[in-house]
């Protein structure tokens, strides 16, 4: 029985990390929003690892925060251990990671949603998307409630036709034994949307009291903690941290696995989905890296209010009896008691090349798609897309141009451009090596890069924006001072240089040149710099990085300049590639399928050659001249729907 349940602006389908960000962004931008979830108890659930951040994912969280998203704030409130990783490896790859209290994280996020004006959360499965003339017009729950809406954001994660497997046990299920979404896949297929089938997995959870920690190495959090959110200081969020533990598999573990491989649905061919290379099951690792005699296993608490421990590194789809046998070969786990078994999950997701860079479906106005459903993996990747999907759903209704981040603006830009331009054949994980301008896209300057955009679209307060401007002013002022300051080779100076085994100076040297020496930095040179003003930590950090790596940063800025020239050549949605003479057939087909928004994006599509790009350049020029012969005097054609320009960033 169907019934009219009301009219809203934005419907968000799914309440995971993508759905939460999408719903919050849309509501905060003034849209009347409902977020639908199969179970409201699964809002912001972490069905796999109990942590947020890590290499490149930490960057994403910081960028989400700078744009006005929630993830960073939620984890700052609910972390139980935090670490800055890669601190020895260069400022671009510093990576913040926090262990989360899963239950508290979920509760925190749910409460935020509930308290946000314009936002309502709603328990129910969406079974159908309504469209009229290629535009979204509503969503229908499985129970028959029809919500009329102007835009919808699909964030179904791994729920679509979910199927969980371990050993011979194969059950239709969402993650963590939640109900799968069974209706929407068919509806989307009927709408002409292409679906893929992907796979991922999670390890077992073990009761803490059954573990012998004497046989493992403790893993501590950092003493000097760094918050994810730019709005928090270390003082704000300081608290007691919990321990994680490290242990290893051994030959016995591997033997158990090898003896039972035939019972794995993965090797038996039962699993159809494509799994990620970077998240292999333990049986995968043992088979593919047969010469490795041990693999690392991290034991991480699932929270403060539970005894359940997450066993990182032991993802598996082997039967329960095999899991028990193999886990118990590991030092410290000899008597382990299982609370939840490891499993693999298969699910439907879309071929993301069907989307525009705004995350809107090319074929359906107002229909956006975000998160793991787009073929990505990871909470942070999902949240980042959810935020952009929510923002652009709101901007679509507002009649504004979408927010599109370029690859030179942030990891979010790289993530979305990769998904949309190349599609993914396996779940996509963010990695630092995917970001070609990573020296500029550091986690420490995400606020400088993106906060002005968040402010412009209404997700960042004026106060926070002004604080950023003040920070930038202080940084610029201090850099100028340091560059103009000459340090004399006096006793203090020589002492400090000797202390850090830096070669002595004979005459005056600029402070900035000393900072550039690998063994020195801004902080270490404080004693030789008598007039140094008292500056906040984040300002000092910027001064140090921007002076120390000036040459390398300048180099990448030049590359970005070149890069942007092609990015700024826009290609209209109405381009008829099949009619452009001189394009090779393969290029015609690829361009026709993806309809890139700029020449830059076109150049990244596999199968489009430099010669094809030249042909497109000529074609664009032809079009431009043809249209300037018309009466319209305006050379800037209307077809180039431009994204919000990025304010000067570094």
């Amino acid at each position, binding site marked *: 029985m169907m019934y009219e349940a009301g009219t809203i602006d934005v419907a968000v389908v799914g309440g995971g990390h993508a759905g939460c960000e999408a719903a919050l962004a849309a509501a905060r931008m003034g849209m009347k929003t409902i977020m639908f979830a199969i179970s409201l108890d699964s809002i912001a659930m972490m069905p796999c690892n109990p942590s947020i951040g890590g290499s490149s994912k930490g960057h994403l969280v910081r960028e989400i925060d700078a744009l006005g998203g929630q993830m960073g704030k939620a984890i700052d409130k609910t972390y139980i251990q935090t670490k800055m990783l890669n601190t020895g490896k*260069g400022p671009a790859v510093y990576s913040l990671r926090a262990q989360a209290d899963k239950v508290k994280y979920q509760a925190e996020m749910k409460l935020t949603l509930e308290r946000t004006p314009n936002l309502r959360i709603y328990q129910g499965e969406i079974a159908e998307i309504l469209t009229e003339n290629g535009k979204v017009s509503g969503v229908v729950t499985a129970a028959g409630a029809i919500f009329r809406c102007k835009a919808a954001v699909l964030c179904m994660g791994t729920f679509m036709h979910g199927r969980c497997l371990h050993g011979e046990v194969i059950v239709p299920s969402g993650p963590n034994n939640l109900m799968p979404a069974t209706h929407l896949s068919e509806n989307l297929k009927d709408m002409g949307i292409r679906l893929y089938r992907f796979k991922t997995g999670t390890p077992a959870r073990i009761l803490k009291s059954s573990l012998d920690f004497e046989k493992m190495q403790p893993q501590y959090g950092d003493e000097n903690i760094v918050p994810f959110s730019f709005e928090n200081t270390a003082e704000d969020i300081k608290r007691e941290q919990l321990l994680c533990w490290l242990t290893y598999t051994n030959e016995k573990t591997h033997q158990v696995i090898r003896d039972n491989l035939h019972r794995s649905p993965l090797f038996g061919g039962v699993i159809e989905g494509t799994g990620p290379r970077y998240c292999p099951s333990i049986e995968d690792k043992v088979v593919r890296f047969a010469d490795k005699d041990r693999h690392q296993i991290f034991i991480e608490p699932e929270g403060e209010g539970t005894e359940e421990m997450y066993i*990182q590194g032991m993802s598996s789809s082997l039967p329960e009896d095999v899991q028990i046998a193999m886990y118990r070969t590991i030092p410290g786990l000899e008597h382990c008691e299982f609370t939840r078994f490891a499993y693999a999950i298969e699910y439907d997701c879309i071929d993301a090349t069907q989307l525009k860079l705004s995350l809107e479906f090319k074929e359906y106005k107002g229909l956006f798609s975000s998160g793991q459903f787009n073929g990505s993996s990871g909470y942070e990747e999902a949240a980042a897309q959810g935020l952009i999907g929510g923002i652009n759903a709101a901007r679509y209704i507002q009649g504004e141009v979408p927010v599109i981040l370029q690859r030179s603006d942030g990891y979010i830009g790289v993530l979305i451009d990769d998904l949309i331009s190349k599609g993914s054949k396996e779940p996509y994980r963010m990695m630092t*090596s995917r970001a070609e301008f990573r020296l500029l896209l550091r986690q420490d300057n995400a606020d400088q890069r993106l906060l002005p955009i968040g402010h412009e679209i209404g997700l960042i307060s004026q106060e926070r924006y002004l604080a950023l401007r003040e920070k930038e002013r202080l940084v610029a002022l201090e850099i100028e001072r340091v560059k103009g300051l000459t340090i004399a080779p006096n006793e203090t100076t020589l002492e400090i240089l000797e202390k850090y085994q830096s070669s002595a100076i004979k005459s005056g040297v600029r402070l900035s040149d000393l900072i550039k020496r*690998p063994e020195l930095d801004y902080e270490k040179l404080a004693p030789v710099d008598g007039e140094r003003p008292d500056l906040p930590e984040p300002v000092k950090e910027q001064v140090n990085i921007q002076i120390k*790596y000036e040459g390398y940063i300048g180099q990448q800025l030049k590359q970005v300049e070149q890069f942007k020239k092609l990015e700024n050549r826009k290609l209209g949605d109405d381009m008829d590639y099949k009619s452009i003479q001189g394009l090779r057939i393969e290029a015609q087909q690829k361009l026709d399928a993806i309809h890139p928004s700029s020449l830059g994006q076109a150049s990244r599509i596999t199968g489009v050659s430099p*010669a094809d790009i030249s042909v497109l350049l*000529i074609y664009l020029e*032809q079009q431009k001249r043809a249209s300037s012969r018309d009466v319209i005097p305006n050379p800037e054609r209307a077809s180039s729907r431009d994204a919000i320009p990025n304010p000067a960033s570094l």
Partner: protein
Amino acid sequence: MNRFNQLDDIIAAISTPLGVGGIGIVRISGGGSIELVDGLFSGKNTLLSKKSHTLSYGKIIHHGEIIDEALVSVMKAPQTYTKEDIVEINCHGGSLVTRRILEAVLNEGARLAEPGEFTKRAFLNGRMDLTQAEAVIDIINSHTDLSRQAAVNQLEGRLKIEVGSMRQEILDMIASIEAVIDYPEHDVEEETYGTMEQGTLKILDRMEKLLQNADRGKIIREGLETVIVGKPNVGKSSLLNWLLEEERAIVTDIPGTTRDTVEEYINIDGIPMKIVDTAGIRETGDLVEKMGVEKSKAHAEKADLILMMLDSSRPLEAEDREILSFIQGKKTLVLLNKTDLTQALSMEELEKYIPKEQLLSVSIKENRGFEELINGLKELFFHGEGVKAEDGLLGNTRHKNALFRAKEAMEQCLITIRTRMPEDFISLDLQDANRALGEITGDVADEEIIDRIFTKFCLGK
């Protein structure tokens, strides 16, 4: 990354057909071209101080070495072919010098123009009529096809194998660093600065060797690989000497005295040639002579040009016929020597083997026929199919340019390692090198690195 199609950087190319005439022109276009050439130019005034559309006389000096005297024309935007600043260096040292000047310009930061790129820019900057757009597209596509053909040739094949193997080593180094960065807590074996330095030095060494070879033989000094064939004592060494205008090889009347293969580099009217003197192609029982013959055959097999000497005062003999059938269908000029004596050769029979226009009458003794030889060469190489040779050389310069940039990146990498900069920076330098090498092999790096990380290391939760 967009490795191609930059829209307004400085581009340069040789704009005269290679080997034609005694003057070569290197054309440079783009904002900053004038300043760039000023860095190489030594004249009365700087080029920057000159008015637009003027000629300046001076010397082109690179790294302290005078390459040539030149007339340099300065044309300032927008009244130029591309509507950008254009500088043209007119030199008169033939193609060898022209190319050295081009390389100096590239070293100073210009990029080698893609085929048809000046015209493309002219069009994009509104210089040409709309109806010419199609022609521009044709140029782009036809040159792409040609360079694809050129890619098949042996020399390039070898280069690509060597470059490809260097890339694999660089990729391994990148993957090792990136794996540690992306999986900070995994027990991935970290490369030490020491091993990274070793690896970098090894690759640098290989790059230098490759570049040296390129400089010495293959690219700079080697033009057309030319083989002189003919039966013994027909005057092959005399021909070489004639070409060289000096006595290098021993000229004698006893068959088989020119035993060793002698290589000489010459430049005939702008056409660079590497001439391989031969020991004469004939069946022989003499071991030393036999080796010479084998060598000659091998040389003839891969030569760009074959010069065959025939004695026109004698009728064709079995040996001549054997050689003629061996070289049939190859790029050949047959020199009919001794035209000062009574002619006994049957032209009719000869034309069954070699087209008439490739038969040239000369008399080395009387120094006649040199002009005909030059014209024959130009006809053979720089019209019709001649374009192909030009493209091949162009490709080589492009490859050299890419290799040079890769080497610079590896040198930077060495500094980064030695100053103990964090690994991230080492990886960035390596990625620069890898991208430059990829331009030679035609590979794109991004997914490759990630593939390598996961095939090399066991990672993940």
